[in-house]
């Protein structure tokens, strides 16, 4: 297993439960990946740490976990993969599952939003870190914001930055974070700027409705054209309210950019080492979009989680279990693993 995030942990747990000898390699010092940084999860507001504890139950004592492990080279000798690490160790495997996940879009690339330049522009990950650390919500000069803005689709569905795909989780994350702010500071006014709200998951729509009816969160259909800094360091927003068909200009004390998913650096590096194919959106390309969703172009190498596309935690867990089943049938030489489907162009 390459990558000890949600998908890597859950696949490892299931394969170990099927009595396979599983080695999980993780570059960071702890398992959990991005989940470590998210305090509460949509749509239930469950603590992320509870999901992590659940995943750990399947890994602890069952899986050989090697953290702080950086992979430098992978090659195949006969039927086995030889995985070399920066510490000089080599691991052998009959099959490799790649679960290298995603990175967050670097919001500085949306230069016109002023992230890294304006003092009161932060990312959704930074807001979550404030929640996780138990720090009170504050502006750069320590005030509780009277007005906050959330900008959806930062680095997603945006040809200008080269990412045309939807990151799937940002809409509902904005709704979740806006509700959390309102629960902590009911006096703070919140404005969410969106293109369209993709509330596809069970209970997402109810959460969105609750955000409006119970918490009075404002949703404005319009993409931010630019942000500027006022003399008092608040952030001036310019957008078009496309429902009223009018340009809109307003100031907020704190602006949150809902940053999307991009393929992780680990995905790029491991893909190069193994000769894996990448899709048009630079995530890994699976053998088929409908059926062989865990299968790579290299026999014996499989995928799970957000290394193939943006996924929710629920999707990643489901995908990880599917990958475990796929790998098991491959290792057992079952006929089912030899199924093919006509390639779609």
């Amino acid at each position, binding site marked *: 297993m390459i990558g000890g995030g949600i998908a890597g942990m859950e696949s490892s747990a299931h394969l170990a439960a099927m009595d396979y000898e599983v080695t999980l390699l993780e570059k960071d010092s702890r398992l959990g990946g991005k989940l470590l940084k998210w305090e509460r999860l949509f749509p239930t507001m469950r603590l992320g740490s509870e999901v992590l504890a659940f995943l750990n139950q399947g890994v602890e004592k069952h899986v050989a976990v090697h953290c702080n492990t950086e992979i430098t080279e992978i090659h195949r000798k006969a039927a086995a993969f030889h995985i070399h690490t920066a510490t000089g160790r080599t691991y052998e495997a009959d099959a490799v599952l790649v679960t290298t996940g995603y990175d967050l879009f670097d919001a500085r690339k949306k*230069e*016109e939003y002023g992230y*890294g*330049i*304006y003092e009161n522009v932060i990312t959704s990950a930074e807001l979550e870190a404030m929640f996780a650390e138990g720090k009170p919500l504050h502006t750069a000069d320590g005030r509780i914001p009277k007005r906050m803005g959330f900008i959806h689709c930062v680095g997603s569905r945006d040809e200008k930055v080269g990412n045309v795909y939807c990151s799937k989780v940002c809409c509902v994350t904005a709704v979740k974070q806006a509700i959390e702010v309102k629960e902590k500071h009911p006096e703070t006014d919140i404005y969410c700027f969106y293109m369209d709200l993709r509330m596809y998951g069970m209970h997402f729509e109810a959460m969105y409705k609750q955000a409006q009816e119970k918490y009075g969160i404002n949703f404005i259909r319009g993409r931010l054209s*630019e942000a*500027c800094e*006022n*003399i008092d*360091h608040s952030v001036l927003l310019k957008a078009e309210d496309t429902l009223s068909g009018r340009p809109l200009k307003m100031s907020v004390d704190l602006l949150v950019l809902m940053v999307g998913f991009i393929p992780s650096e680990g995905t790029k590096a491991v893909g190069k080492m193994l000769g894996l194919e990448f899709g048009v959106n630079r995530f890994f390309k699976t053998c088929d979009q409908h059926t062989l969703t865990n299968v790579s172009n290299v026999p014996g190498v499989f995928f799970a989680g957000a290394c193939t596309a943006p996924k929710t935690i629920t999707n990643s867990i489901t995908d990880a279990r599917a990958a475990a089943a796929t790998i098991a049938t491959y290792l057992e030489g079952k006929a089912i693993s030899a199924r093919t489907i006509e390639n779609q162009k």
Partner: protein
Amino acid sequence: MKKEGKEQLWKDYQKEIADDRYFYVRSCVRQNFFPGSETAFLKILQEELGKDVYEHPCHTTCTGIGYHADVVPFDTAMTVVARQFAIMTESGYHNLVPSCITSFGLYTEILETWKHFPEVEARVREYLYKATKRDFRVPENLAHASDVIYKFRSEIAAKGKFRLVHHETGRPLKVVEHIGCHYAKMFPDKGVGGAEYPYVLTGMIEEWGGEVVDYPERRHCCGFGFRQYLVQANRGYSMSCSHKKFESMEPYAPDLILTNCPGCPMFLDRWQYAISEMEGKTYGGDGQGIPVFTYEELAGLVLGYNPWDLGLQMHQVACEPVLDKMGIPYDAAAKYLDKHGHSLGQPLQPQKLKV
């Protein structure tokens, strides 16, 4: 405002600017609007810095104004520009330096078009040959004249007699920098510092001792915007754009505005008068306006040139407050005299704006 964030971004937008042997092409309108600017550019490059700058007597408009006003088709604009390239080639130069931002934008757009669509370049070569029997090489380097002044900003500072600081208090003058839209908004990587936080004028201001004012409507159009002004019925929109900028920059109390486009200093300067007449509002201190300068004019002041030789008497907003702050001596009685000492005539006094 985090300066280090901008500095990080500026690293991503550096461009190659040739250091000598420039083929200079003038603006259609700048000599009417700000008659000393292009002359000052040539003087600074040739006399102060010893550079080879050549302007061919047969160069023409690039047609950029007509192109952006939708009265000149792109093929025509490309053929006229191809002719400029041809006379540059015939003159033995490779580094093109346009004075005008719109020309710079149009040259950039044409070169990018030809890079991606070589068949268009071949077609334009054929047009030019049929019309003039001329051929050309594309420029090896294209830089706007403000890029060139930016490149030599340290040399200008070293030779300078004055700095952008209050000569009595040592306070850095607060400068609003306004970049022409066609400089980098179409092709961000062709401008020093990119499109959102351009560095070309900021670099000059900082090097010469001033402090840049970043205000909320910094990116907004000056009010020229071609069809906002060229179509008479739209001129209220032109003025409202300038008004929006003045209202936005006013709380920062800037000492001056620095520009790099032909239209921007014109509209930011003249509309201050028009707004004062219409609204009774002025944006500088004590009923005065905020003086507006071109980068050549400001470089000339730093180098100690006579303000009236730079054509500053042609500004609507009086430049004297900036001269006084920088400690630049000037002969008030000579403001409206030509170089032979003859009177140019006195302009009428505005009702509200103090000049």
